[in-house]
């Protein structure tokens, strides 16, 4: 039996506030580098957009401008996997309402593609001066607040269990498989010739950036949803500091590089429909709180052997395919009528789930 005494002694670096600020700053700098090297503007990282691009590359949707196997995603999973193994934190586990999580993944993706970005891209957009993302942030925070109300009312997707030890290796293996497809580029994989999907940093650099951010996020538990959630629930600002660090670093960096453009109109890969930007991110915030973490965190956990998060990631990829096949995804021109309907349906679905899994309904177990 090992004993670890902690009260006032020094914390490990990555559990300290300095650690999370360092990680946030690193994510900000790496995002700026990726944009300089070819990624779309304000899209150094976007978990939703990149999973959507992968769905397109695999032919799950046929939106020709958003098809590419993003090495950043591969790197994030493998970076988390390697650091989790090294830190003895890799554990195959799952079984906490997987079907619910799959559909929540779809809902979160539909919300993110209404807004045009996951929470991480939302703050990268804020750092680029895109005021539409501030509107998104308001919706995001409100969504988290609603989710917290249900958490306080006993919302739970129930516990997970240890799974077969191989289960946790599947996502890292899939990540390697995606990398092989990216390099081999067989005819059945689609790569955009124009549009955001065609804009990307060199493969090796994007992969390394993903690995670094994956490792940092695994060590620090960096999570865009967790920051606001923990501040509301427990008055703990650890994760929020990472969130703020990303905004500060990208804002300063974009100003220095001449990429900072303050305003609503003509922002890169964004639209100005305020109501739907707000509702889209409200859906993302609410859904992510129920899932226990933002899309980035789900990806990281899937690399740590958590199959519930792996199922969520698969749900997000399917959600991206649905969003483009059914014309739910917004574009620079704005939101679509189908997207409006889909977001409302998803909000109703998330409300129903929130009520059904909380103490508001008498549970049998």
């Amino acid at each position, binding site marked *: 039996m090992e004993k670890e005494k902690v009260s006032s002694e020094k914390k490990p670096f990555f559990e300290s506030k300095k650690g999370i600020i360092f990680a946030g700053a690193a994510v900000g700098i790496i995002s700026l580098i990726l944009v300089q090297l070819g990624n779309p503007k304000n899209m150094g990282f976007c978990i939703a957009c990149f999973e959507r691009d992968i769905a397109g590359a695999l032919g799950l949707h046929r939106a020709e401008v958003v098809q590419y196997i993003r090495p950043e995603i591969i790197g994030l999973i493998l970076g988390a996997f390697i650091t989790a193994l090294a830190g003895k934190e890799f554990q195959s586990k799952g079984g906490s309402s997987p079907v619910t999580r799959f559909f929540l993944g779809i809902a979160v993706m539909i919300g993110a593609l209404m807004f045009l970005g996951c929470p991480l891209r939302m703050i990268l957009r804020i750092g680029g001066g895109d005021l539409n993302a501030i509107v998104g942030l308001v919706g995001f925070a409100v969504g988290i607040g609603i989710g917290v109300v249900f958490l306080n009312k006993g919302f739970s997707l129930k516990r997970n269990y240890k799974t077969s030890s191989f289960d946790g290796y599947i996502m890292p293996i899939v990540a390697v498989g995606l990398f092989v497809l990216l390099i081999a580029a067989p005819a059945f994989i689609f790569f955009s010739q124009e549009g955001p999907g065609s804009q990307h940093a060199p493969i090796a650099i994007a992969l390394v950036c993903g690995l670094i951010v994956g490792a940092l996020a695994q060590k620090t*538990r960096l999570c865009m949803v967790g920051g606001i959630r923990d501040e509301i629930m427990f008055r703990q600002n650890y994760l929020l500091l990472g969130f703020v660090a990303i905004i500060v670093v990208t804002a300063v960096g974009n100003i220095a590089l001449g990429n900072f453009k303050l305003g609503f109109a003509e922002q890169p890969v964004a639209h100005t429909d305020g109501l739907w930007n707000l509702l889209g991110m409200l859906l993302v915030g609410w859904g992510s709180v129920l899932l226990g973490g933002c899309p980035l965190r789900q990806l990281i956990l899937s690399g740590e052997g958590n199959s519930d998060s792996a199922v969520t990631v698969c749900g997000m990829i399917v959600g991206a395919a649905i969003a483009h096949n059914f014309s739910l995804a917004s574009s620079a021109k704005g939101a679509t009528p189908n997207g409006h309907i889909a977001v409302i349906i998803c909000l109703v679905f998330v409300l129903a789930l929130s009520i059904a899994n909380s103490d508001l309904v008498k549970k049998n177990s």
Partner: protein
Amino acid sequence: MKIDTCGTSCPQPVLMTKKALDNNPGSNKIEVLTDNNTSKTNVKKFLVSKGFNVEIEEEDDTFLVRGIK
């Protein structure tokens, strides 16, 4: 007082700890069992913020986070 949070992930273990403390005001000892590092750290931070001295026992795949005032 002892609570078992195994299988749940953040923020639930902290929430369960918070509820246990809220339901037993004035208690000066709490033990929280968890099975993952993240929750261990989060519960530890939470108890420290509530003025507890914390020690952690690790056994197999579980952590017993013990807070004493």
